């Protein structure tokens, strides 16, 4: 029955093979165009993350590094949020250090 309402609206039910084809192609071409197979892409992402993690704590669960297409140009877009978690040792150390520095500054003035 929902098929009928989809038909009324000029829509096809569920995800059809035309949509699947388009999505598969987009993924295939992203890698074809920069000549970087998916496994190498994963290695590259891991390395990018490792470099950034050397300087700041990264919220690894919410990292998004992906190739994008703008017309026929490819670009890599990375969203790498810093860690907010207050219970991590790292964050606590940073907070303590910042508090110390603030106290020192207050003493100086």
């Amino acid at each position, binding site marked *: 029955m929902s098929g009928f309402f989809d038909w009324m609206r000029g829509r096809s039910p569920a995800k059809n093979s035309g949509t699947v084809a*388009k999505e598969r192609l987009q993924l295939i071409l992203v890698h074809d165009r920069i000549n970087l197979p998916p496994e190498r892409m994963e290695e590259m992402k891991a390395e990018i993350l490792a470099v950034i993690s050397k300087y700041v704590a990264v919220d690894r669960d919410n990292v998004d590094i992906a190739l994008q297409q703008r017309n026929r140009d490819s670009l890599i877009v990375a969203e790498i949020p810093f860690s907010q978690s207050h219970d991590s040792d790292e964050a606590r150390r940073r907070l303590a250090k910042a508090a110390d520095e603030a106290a020192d500054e207050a003493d100086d003035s």
Partner: protein
Amino acid sequence: MGAKVITVTSGKGGVGKTTATANLGVSLARLGKKVVLIDADVGLRNLDIVMGLENRIVYDLVDVVEGRCQLRQAMIKHKQFPDLFLIPAAQTRDKTAISPADMIQITDKLRPEFDYILIDSPAGIERGFRNAVAPADEVLIVTNPEVSAVRDADRIIGLLEANNKGPAKLIINRVNPDMVRRGEMMSADDVTDILAIKLIGIVPEDEHVIPASNSGIPVTLNENSRAGAAFRNIARRLTGENVPFLPMNDSVGFFQRLARLFTGQGE
């Protein structure tokens, strides 16, 4: 004044390059243009068959390159259109018999006499493709709305851009409007979106095409053929005319669908 050299190519084989070359040639001739078609698919000669000229071949492209005949002698005049010629490929040789420089030399000789030189390219990215593309002023990429054909088209588009032969224009062939409507085939918009080049024509899947090549009369001479009409439109676009795209299916409204349901008709 000289001819424009247009090469028709694809990544994948069997997508409709030869069909497109024959029909664009005939359509341009019908518009009063002087046209010569070159079959650059050496070893897999085909264009002569689709054009219905296979019985009149004496010399071929390789004979010209190797000096066994004058260029003129290898040009077969079309029965119906005196300003339409075909230079056939050799059937028994391979693509290495010809170089990109040979193709440039031959087209340069033809340019002063013609309005359009259309080159039917072999599939793939090897020597035959490089021969076909070397003299091109403009390249048309033919694809079908299928994952593998579009992927291979993308590869060709990238190669052409890297060799400063871009931007190519796109012909999407064998679109089945009913399948697109049901969501079982990518639409012309989907394919154009993905390849991100300019679209010059959408040709529907059409059962008139095979009988036309069976009898050697290009389908565009059949006024009832939708594919034929699509090729005529592409030819007009090639001459610079602004021809709107036939609404094929992408935005069919409710009432049109309803009407079609009752009349049992397509577009």
